[in-house]
């Protein structure tokens, strides 16, 4: 499931990258296919052809800078806003390079083309969309001002102006909006995949725990059945062995009834496993519920907390009591057992993780207690 999540995250990254590449391709194709063609073919129609050529080169240089940033980071260059100023300047330069009669003509390529450069520069930048609106408005304003200055405000020119503006701005903003929607959908897909993965992990854990509980219920049922059969066959309820077996079964059943968490803590799981193992060796284990709010333990603490108490439990002869006490910055694990063999330290043992283990023998019982105090 984690692999699927990673895969979809990569898809979202690819969306961002390839839509950026799309913007680069459109701008470059437009710039070489149209801007370059009309600059060369209309060379003699320009008032200042060298200015038009310089503007084309400046456009190309800025477009290369923007393209490098887009390919590396899927965002426009860090100084995209500052670079928009020379772009508007080259827009003016192309206007100046044309005779007034060609202002609305095909060789004035600047005003219809710089919008794509604006898209590249402000792509995926913070506040980039608002800045692009300002940029496109400035471009439209410059052209309108030029038309007013040169007296090109006849009906045909205004109609051409509007047609080119609406056409180019629709394409540029439309591409931007389309890509944004794609990216948002891809991000939604990632979030959904993550949620599904988390749900699946939870479900799988719960199913495993449920199956484990059923297995333990089955085991207890077998024990209970055999005990009832013994009693029905005349076993003496006063016999200490029969009574001990009944008590052991009741304790296991009680512990199962009080287990309420769906996904137990790692420490609790480790303890339960060893309690089960001890019970299989006919050790009578009592273990009050471990609680639900156990703290997150730093690396290595869990192992140090469990090591000595589990040794005491593993070596229990006939009975053991396992307890866990926890607060937000404290955890204490203890085992009291009739373990005669475990070598003990008479002084507290300080583990490198900060866990302190103490041992005590009294009245035929061993008490092993490991405590971790958080910062």
């Amino acid at each position, binding site marked *: 499931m984690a692999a699927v999540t990673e895969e979809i995250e990569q898809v979202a990254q690819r969306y961002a990258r390839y839509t950026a590449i799309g913007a680069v391709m459109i701008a470059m194709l437009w710039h070489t296919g149209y801007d370059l063609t009309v600059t060369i073919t209309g060379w003699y129609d320009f008032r200042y052809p060298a200015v038009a050529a310089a503007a084309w080169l400046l456009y190309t240089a800025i477009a290369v800078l923007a393209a490098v940033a887009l390919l590396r980071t899927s965002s426009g260059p860090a100084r995209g806003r500052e670079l928009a100023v020379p772009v508007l300047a080259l827009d003016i330069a192309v206007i100046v390079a044309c005779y007034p009669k060609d202002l609305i003509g095909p060789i004035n390529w600047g005003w219809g083309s710089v919008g794509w450069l604006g898209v590249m520069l402000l792509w995926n930048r913070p506040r980039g969309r608002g800045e692009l609106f300002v940029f496109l408005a400035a471009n439209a304003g410059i052209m309108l001002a030029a038309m007013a200055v040169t007296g090109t405000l006849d009906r045909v020119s205004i109609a051409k102006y509007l047609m080119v503006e609406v056409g180019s701005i629709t394409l540029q903003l439309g591409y931007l909006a389309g890509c944004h929607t794609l990216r948002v959908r891809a991000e939604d897909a990632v979030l959904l995949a993550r949620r599904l993965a988390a749900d699946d992990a939870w479900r799988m854990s719960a199913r495993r725990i449920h199956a484990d509980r059923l297995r333990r219920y089955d085991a207890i049922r077998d024990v209970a059945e055999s005990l009832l059969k013994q009693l029905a066959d005349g076993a003496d309820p006063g016999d200490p062995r029969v009574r001990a077996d009944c008590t052991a079964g009741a304790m296991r059943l009680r512990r199962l009834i*009080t287990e309420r968490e769906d996904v137990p803590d790692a420490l609790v799981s480790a303890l339960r496993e060893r309690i089960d193992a001890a019970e299989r060796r006919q050790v009578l284990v009592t273990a009050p*519920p471990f609680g639900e709010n156990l703290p997150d333990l730093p690396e290595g603490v869990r192992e140090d907390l469990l090591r000595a108490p589990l040794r005491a439990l593993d070596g229990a002869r006939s009975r053991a009591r396992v307890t866990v*006490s926890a*607060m937000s910055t404290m955890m204490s694990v*203890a085992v*009291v057992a009739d373990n005669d063999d475990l070598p003990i330290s008479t002084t507290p043992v300080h583990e490198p993780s900060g866990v302190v283990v103490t041992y005590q023998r*009294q009245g035929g019982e061993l008490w092993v207690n490991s405590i971790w105090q958080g910062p």
Partner: protein
Amino acid sequence: MGQQHLAGPVTVALVEDHQVVVDGVRSWFSPPGPVCLVAQGSTIESVRGVAADVLMLDLNLNGTLVVDRVAELCGGGQRVIVFSEHEEPEIVRAVLDAGASAFIGKGRATRESCLETILEVAADKPSMTPPMAQAIATDEGPHRPQLSDKERAALLFWFQSMSKASVAARMGIKERTVRQYIDRARVKYAAAGRPAPTKEKLLICAIQDGLVRPDEVTVYTSLAARSGEVT
């Protein structure tokens, strides 16, 4: 208040829905003994109105946890001992906050420990079973009592060790001092929680016995004004 129970056996009503547990408790209390079972039923309503010094209450009745009924029972001044396998600290704290005098965990209850708790509760003395010690020591709620480090350590060790004697050995103090730490923690816990008549009785007794001073128990300030009722 505690004196009156020295005259005869302490009377107990039991709310428990499992016959095998009822039979077990009945055998523990069989006469002659210091405790006498005067009523039993599988619902709270079935023992309502019965005059008993102590009500023993199983928390899981016919598949439903009755934690939220404890406050109503204690509100009338009834001493309640909860007798349950639900020893989770959160549940123990909830019933103690509601005014229960003690919580006995079914997991390791013995006749002796059960009788000891009932007698202490009937005499309004501080009673502290291992599940209570754990619940009080790990309380991090906003109204938790201000326990000293030694009181908290004594509670935790009492919950996790084999006996108060072990706790004494571990802490390097006398067993009597361990008892004192544990009893003081119980009194502080009663004072810090929501007021309930059963907690007031415990606090008054603790002060009479010299276990705490009136100024150590903030809740008691209001009770001190009613000292006429105590004596």
